[in-house]
């Protein structure tokens, strides 16, 4: 039985040769762990939906990637998380934006697809739906990391454009 899994951890303007060694190895370690999680599901005959969810949860839990823990900060200094998922068999889809308390936003997106008649929920409503579905909740500062805070401070101090900073840090 054949299967395929492809993942990404974002794109920035920082080419490979400019990454600090520890950034490089951390990114590779996170990607490897995510590949293993998704591959294990597929090797056991599991669904593409479960494999995608498993791989993305690993990267959401890894603070080296801009998703879940380690997400970038908004201008007001909070973390607002977006996620989406789609099933190619049924064209079922779920998406959330501005979620602030769900540990794994990809699971919230999936709950929107599987447990609601909607496709996209946002902000307080998404957070309320997450609680109703019994998804794991965390306090907002779970997502916060010193490096992302430093990037926000740099943006504000230098008044860089949003693209500049994002392109630089991916």
């Amino acid at each position, binding site marked *: 039985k054949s*299967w395929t*899994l*492809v993942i990404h*951890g974002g794109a920035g303007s920082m080419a490979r040769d400019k990454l600090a060694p520890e950034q490089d190895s951390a990114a590779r370690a996170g990607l490897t762990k995510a590949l293993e999680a*998704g591959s294990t599901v597929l090797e056991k005959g599991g669904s593409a939906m479960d494999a*995608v969810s498993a791989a993305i949860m690993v990267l959401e839990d890894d603070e080296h990637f801009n998703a879940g823990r380690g997400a970038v*900060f908004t201008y007001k200094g909070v973390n607002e*998380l*977006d996620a989406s998922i789609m*099933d190619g068999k049924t064209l079922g889809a779920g998406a959330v934006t501005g979620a602030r308390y769900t540990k794994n936003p990809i699971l919230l997106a999936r709950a929107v697809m599987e447990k609601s008649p909607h496709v996209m929920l946002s902000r307080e409503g998404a957070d309320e739906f997450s609680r109703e579905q019994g998804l794991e909740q965390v306090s907002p500062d779970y997502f916060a990391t010193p490096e992302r805070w430093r990037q926000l401070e740099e943006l504000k101090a230098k008044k860089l454009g949003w693209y500049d900073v994002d392109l630089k840090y991916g």
Partner: protein
Amino acid sequence: TVGAVAVDSEGNVAAGTSTGGLTGKRWGRIGDSPVIGAGNYADNRACGVSATGAGEFFIRLGVAHEICARMRMLGEDAKTASDHVIKELGLLGGTGGVIVTAPDGTATFAFNTPGMYRGKATSKGDRMVAIY
């Protein structure tokens, strides 16, 4: 932004994307990651796509759905369709890239920015992690 696309042993495709968005975003700004058809799309008749990059351009072009539509209606393979749409994105001034997989097991990438973190695994034993 992080993403994954997969095709399972029954030939079903799925795509997922998750992000914190842009550093310093204001006014509840939303990029392409949660917008079905822009940053994320899956269709067994074509492919699964997850995108990362300058969201506004991906939304305006409908990148993820455009790649699937080109495969479905023009019969292009995943690489040809992805390269075409990312080139068009670049002409608009957008940066970023996509990962794509199709029911036939195709796995491909297309991007116009350095520093993309990627990985691929298949039942044939391929295991690749790379930073470009």
